[in-house]
């Protein structure tokens, strides 16, 4: 059941919280009670933080409060770092006091058999009674990086960016965040949805779908109780923002005995898969692919058509990428005669290569003085997207400034740069190019995956035009 309007309003208040209580805060190194305090203090959070713990007067130099009721006016968000029984009690007291919403970190609810379900039912009742939004339980919590509201209790090294991660697993969510981090891509939000007792994926999607800070939503889904709500949530959101989904549980064997064939054919994963596509989400197969695709959506426009140009001076990586790109429906139109002549004049009559698309400059292309003018020529042509390969060599200058300038000028058309170098060598270039708006990857496969996802989204956006 989607959350009601009051809860949705309060959820938005939680996500832009200015006053945050950390209940169960502790100075102990090995306590989860330290995590959110550390994160909030380290992040540029310009709101107020209120540690709550009757045992202390202050923690990390911040005044500590004896109870949630002793903070007045009530906070926008209370992060409850308490065991499941105490968390329920404090959630109710917080709601009664007027706190807008709570995060319950503790596990021990429906995921464990004994008594967990009853606790969860009780939590649902409290939420109903007070219209209380609850993140979790059984979650890392959430962070909103643009505000510096870094409220998760675990370490998460990232920076403000445009990708919102909604994850049913803390560990998988963090892995995707780190994948993005290594692609030099930051986050707008990280939300561990946990057991989704009160707030479910569809509620978070609704809360974020019009947020201008969110460029792309990345979901990790294990399974939900009501896939229809998820379907409708994704469908609504995907009309406004790209939605990328990574679904676990592909091998579950579902055989339902029914009178017809239909029932027995329907493994749930296949239904989820069909549902994601129908809703207009892009499905990915790994945490890394999730990061690659989310980066593309957070940086690039979708292509207006399928006409793609590729530029390289080393054939193989382009061939590898072309396989994937052509399979996904990209076309490789020929270059105009004038452009071919111009490229021929740049690389010289004697270079033994046929000028075509993909443009393989071979030896002469090693030099920025050849590569850059050729790039300028093809960028001026009528293509919808560009796949640009640069094979790194420390003795040859990487034309960062030129790439940034030329690609920026054509920013309506998606361009990916594939920088062939190992991670450590590539790091400074990855950072400079990406932060200047050039969507860069280290392998041809990742570059192709990125362009393919953009093409798929643009074909979703054009749905209904042909039929």
């Amino acid at each position, binding site marked *: 059941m989607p959350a009601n309007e009051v809860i949705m309003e309060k959820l938005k208040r939680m996500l832009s919280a200015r006053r945050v209580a950390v209940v169960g805060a502790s100075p102990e190194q090995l306590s989860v009670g330290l995590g959110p305090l550390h994160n909030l203090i380290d992040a540029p959070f310009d709101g107020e933080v209120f540690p709550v713990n009757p045992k202390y007067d202050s923690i990390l130099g911040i005044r500590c409060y004896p109870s949630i009721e002793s903070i007045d006016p009530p906070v926008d968000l209370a992060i409850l770092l308490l065991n499941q029984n105490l968390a329920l009690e404090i959630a109710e007291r917080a709601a009664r006091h007027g706190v807008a919403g709570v995060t319950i970190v503790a596990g021990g609810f429906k995921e464990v058999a004994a008594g967990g379900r009853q606790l969860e039912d009780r939590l649902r009742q409290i939420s109903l009674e007070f219209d209380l939004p609850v993140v979790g339980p059984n979650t890392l919590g959430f962070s909103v990086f643009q505000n510096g509201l870094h409220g998760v209790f675990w370490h998460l090294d990232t920076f403000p960016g445009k990708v919102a991660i909604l994850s049913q697993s803390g560990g998988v969510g963090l892995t995707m965040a780190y994948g993005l981090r290594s692609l030099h891509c930051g986050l707008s939000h990280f939300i561990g949805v946990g057991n989704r007792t009160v707030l479910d994926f569809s509620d978070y999607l609704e809360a974020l779908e019009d947020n201008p800070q969110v460029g792309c939503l990345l979901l990790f889904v294990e399974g939900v109780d009501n896939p*229809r709500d998820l*379907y409708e949530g994704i469908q609504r959101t995907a009309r406004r923002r790209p939605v990328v989904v990574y679904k676990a549980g592909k091998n579950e064997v579902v055989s339902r005995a029914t009178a017809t*064939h239909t029932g027995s054919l329907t493994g749930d994963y296949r239904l989820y898969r069909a549902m994601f596509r129908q809703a207009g989400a892009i499905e990915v197969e790994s945490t890394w692919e999730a990061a690659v695709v989310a980066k593309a959506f957070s940086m690039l426009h979708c292509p207006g058509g399928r006409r793609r140009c590729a530029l390289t001076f080393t054939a193989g990586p382009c061939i590898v990428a072309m396989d994937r790109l052509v399979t996904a429906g990209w076309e490789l139109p020929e270059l105009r005669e004038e452009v071919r002549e111009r490229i021929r004049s740049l690389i010289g009559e004697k270079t033994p290569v046929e000028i075509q698309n993909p443009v393989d400059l071979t030896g002469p292309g090693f030099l920025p003085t050849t590569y850059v003018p050729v790039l300028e020529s093809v960028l001026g042509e009528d293509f919808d997207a560009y796949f640009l390969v640069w094979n790194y060599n420390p003795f040859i200058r990487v034309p960062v400034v030129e790439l940034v300038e030329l690609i920026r000028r054509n920013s309506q058309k998606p361009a990916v740069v594939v920088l062939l170098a190992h991670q450590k060598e590539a790091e400074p270039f990855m950072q400079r190019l990406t932060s200047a708006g050039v969507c860069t990857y280290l392998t041809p496969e990742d570059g192709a995956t990125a362009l393919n996802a953009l093409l798929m989204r643009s074909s979703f956006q054009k749905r209904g035009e042909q*039929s």
Partner: protein
Amino acid sequence: MILPEHEANRLMDEAGIPVIPLYRVDSREDLAHQLSKLGYPVVLKLSSARCTHKTEAGLVHLNLGSWDAVEAAYLDLQGRRAELDPEGVIILEPMAEAGAELFLGVQDHPQFGLVMSFGLGGIWLELNPDVTFRLLPVERYDLHEMLDELKTWPKLQKGFRHLPPVGKSELIDLMEKVANVILNRREIKELDLNPIVVGRNGPVVVDATVVMDSLRYDSGFSS
């Protein structure tokens, strides 16, 4: 409850879905009369709510090309009816022309709600399923995408081996009508059209299994 085939066929027909014409035969005179209009080859079946896997149970006689063959099949089915289901109905239909065999189903999934499945039908459905799914309601472009997702679609569309090519728009019309009939008549719980044979004159539902929600179903039919 499962509708007997001749009722399922009528329900589809009323919804404007192309079905193979069925003739109920209650006597040998009836049979001879229908045959004089239909010609050969024909199919004789026993339609019974108690037995949906007709082929496996030997209740379908295909491709009957002479009066002797038809008569023998009729006598056999009369015997089977007496032993299986006295309320069963013997039905006569023309042999469907050769064509690709497809499958279309709708189920009411406990979590996903109404789900449409579509794919390669007949015996291939169980051997090596090439199936695609969508949640209802669907847009027309969803139906297009369902066809495009089938691995076998490119070959079906061209006409696999000796089979006539499968046209996209007629098939999509049929799928859309099936989606509508399910959405408009919520007493239908599950539905299985298998096979839909796509001959030279377009798709025809040759066999329909319809499961009614017995709580909602107010039988307007009688067997």
